[in-house]
């Protein structure tokens, strides 16, 4: 289970430094790099292009602007999504590197992935959305049709309900990327689902809507019709451009605040019905067994949760003194109202500052200044409250009601308070402390 490969921050940055020094000495001028474009690209981190670095960048021109370009990140930035080593990379997931996250938006290239049959490659000119079932007018829409409707944009988090599944019984994955990296936030653009449901004329006996993906898994989930009419979005845009392929290009469903897997990617069909379809993903998966053997089904909302992203597991505080404690909080039921931070394992709490604007069903950044004395170990925790009054529970509180039911008995919807221990040598580790 614990094959997630954590790259230690310091080791990574020191090897990157070595590479930069080498490149800087060996290829001091832009012209020299241009003669070796292939070799230099091979050395660049994912998403970057390796460029020569002058001793004093103010004394040489930089590289010229391309006539046409897409852009790349700095060659000095190395954070990447990390895949959990499931048996096959066709049904797998990758974690967002939350330890380096800034603000509330997740870059599209670092947005977490969960796919059940790989990433489908779909030509938007050949993609069709069918809407049928208990409707007056079954219809089909090309992507051009979909984009003709009035559009909206909204910042929303998405979280896999399996986020943290390794952490129930004991601290397992060493970094916040592994423990919490299946949540991300983007600005999504698309058409309110209600617009299209009104177009087709939903019958009065409609109760559920089946959303189906056009990938190899033909991923399907049943969604209550009230939710479908309320705030769901047929999204084709992400962070100001088209969806990334792994996020469902050219069209995905957004079901704000609900389990990530219900936000069907590569959306090709909506069928309206009077009953839930009881698909595999809402019966044998994404359900949780209670101590009495009964399994809870249709656990839609992702409940209020927070985590400190820095300092967090795998980091090293270099010296005593000022450190900013920062992290993310979110709730599928509404808006984060308050985040408290403890540095003594929950003994005492201080209220953190929330980055404005605080949006419903969206990552909320919190920050708190901290003076680390460098002597005693500290246990850092965050605890959020949303506008329903729900207080993020301890793991003990969750276990008291749901049980542990052995390894992987409880899998989904772990939203407990996370603990990071800062040892007296500054090393930060994932611990249980509840």
């Amino acid at each position, binding site marked *: 289970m614990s094959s997630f490969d954590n790259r230690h921050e310091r080791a990574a940055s020191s090897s990157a430094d070595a590479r930069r020094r080498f490149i800087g000495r060996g290829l001091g001028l832009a012209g020299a790099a241009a003669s070796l474009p292939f070799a230099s690209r091979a050395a660049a981190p994912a998403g970057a292009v390796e460029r020569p670095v002058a001793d004093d960048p103010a004394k040489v021109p930089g590289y010229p602007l391309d006539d046409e370009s897409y852009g790349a990140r700095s060659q000095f930035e190395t954070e990447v999504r990390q895949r959990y080593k499931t048996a096959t990379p066709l049904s797998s997931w990758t974690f967002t590197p939350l330890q380096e996250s800034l603000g509330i938006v997740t870059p599209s290239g670092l947005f977490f992935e969960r796919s059940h049959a790989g990433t489908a490659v779909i030509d938007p000119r050949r993609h069709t959305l069918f809407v049928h079932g208990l409707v007056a007018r079954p*219809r089909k829409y090309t992507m051009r049709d979909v984009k003709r409707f009035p559009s909206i944009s909204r910042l929303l988090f998405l979280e896999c309900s399996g986020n943290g599944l390794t952490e129930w019984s004991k601290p397992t994955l060493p970094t916040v990327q592994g423990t919490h990296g299946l949540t991300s936030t983007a600005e999504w653009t698309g058409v309110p689902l209600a617009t299209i449901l009104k*177009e087709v004329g939903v019958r009065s006996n409609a109760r559920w809507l089946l959303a189906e993906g056009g990938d190899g898994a*033909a991923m399907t989930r049943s969604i209550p019709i009230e939710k479908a009419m309320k705030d769901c979005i047929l999204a084709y845009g992400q962070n100001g451009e088209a969806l990334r392929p792994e996020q469902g290009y050219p069209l995905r469903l957004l079901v704000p605040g609900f389990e990530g897997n219900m936000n069907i990617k590569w959306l090709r069909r909506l069928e309206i019905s*009077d009953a839930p379809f009881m698909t595999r993903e809402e019966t044998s998966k994404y359900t949780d067994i209670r101590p009495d053997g009964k399994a809870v089904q249709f656990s839609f909302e992702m409940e209020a949760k927070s985590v400190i992203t820095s300092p967090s597991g795998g980091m090293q505080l270099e010296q005593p003194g000022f450190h900013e404690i920062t992290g993310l909080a979110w709730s599928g039921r509404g808006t984060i109202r308050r985040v408290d931070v403890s540095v003594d394992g929950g003994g005492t709490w201080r209220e953190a500052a929330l980055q404005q604007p605080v949006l419903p069903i969206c990552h909320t950044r919190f920050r708190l200044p901290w003076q680390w004395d460098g002597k005693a170990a500290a246990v850092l925790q965050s605890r959020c409250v949303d506008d329903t009054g*729900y207080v993020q529970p301890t793991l003990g509180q969750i*276990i008291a009601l749901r049980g542990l039911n052995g390894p992987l008995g409880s899998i989904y919807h772990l939203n407990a308070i996370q603990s990071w221990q800062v040892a007296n040598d500054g090393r930060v580790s994932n611990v249980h402390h509840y």
Partner: protein
Amino acid sequence: MSTTTERRASVAAAAVAVLLAACAGAPGSGERSLMSDNVDAAGTPAYGFGQPASDAELARFYSSLPDGRDLPKGSGTVTQGKAIYEAQCVACHGDNLQGGLGDRLIGGRGTLVNGDPAKAPVKTVESYWPYATTLFDYIKRAMPLTAPDTLSDDEVYALCAYILSRAYVIRPDATIDAKALAAVRMPNRDGFISDVRPEKFPPVSQTPHRTSTIPPPK
């Protein structure tokens, strides 16, 4: 309740309505007269983008409900299913349906009530899946992993028969079709409850505690 036939009939009615409305030069009025009062939003669409979806186009999609509605025609036997399983499924799900790269399919009854902190409940088609119709639906659309949506309806019915037979849910001489599949009562049919959240948690003082802090370096 709406059967496939009724749904398809409503498609035809809608098409007629559109024609009538076009003839009358009054968009939507024909629909209201033909559609019964169980239509909420049968008036003129605000935008009218897209095209009508025809029966023929929709025929390739079927998502069955637990009562068997929309299951396709066709059938298969346990014996046929065994041969298909050995050709198509065995590599991932194992000789004895014990799982491997793919999920374990049989066994595990009685493991769902689990007090053992070292053992996980064994969740299989036999022990956990509440509806047999889900088996057809999932195999048809998503299996085999490397060639999904390539098995015929008869082949999928046969695989359902084989797996359910190996799970001791149906007899080894059974034939499975739409009606028979919907009639299967799975062992864990009553094993699911609806979401009970938000939960009212007990005070922290009355809950389990654990500290797994790491000792300071020497």
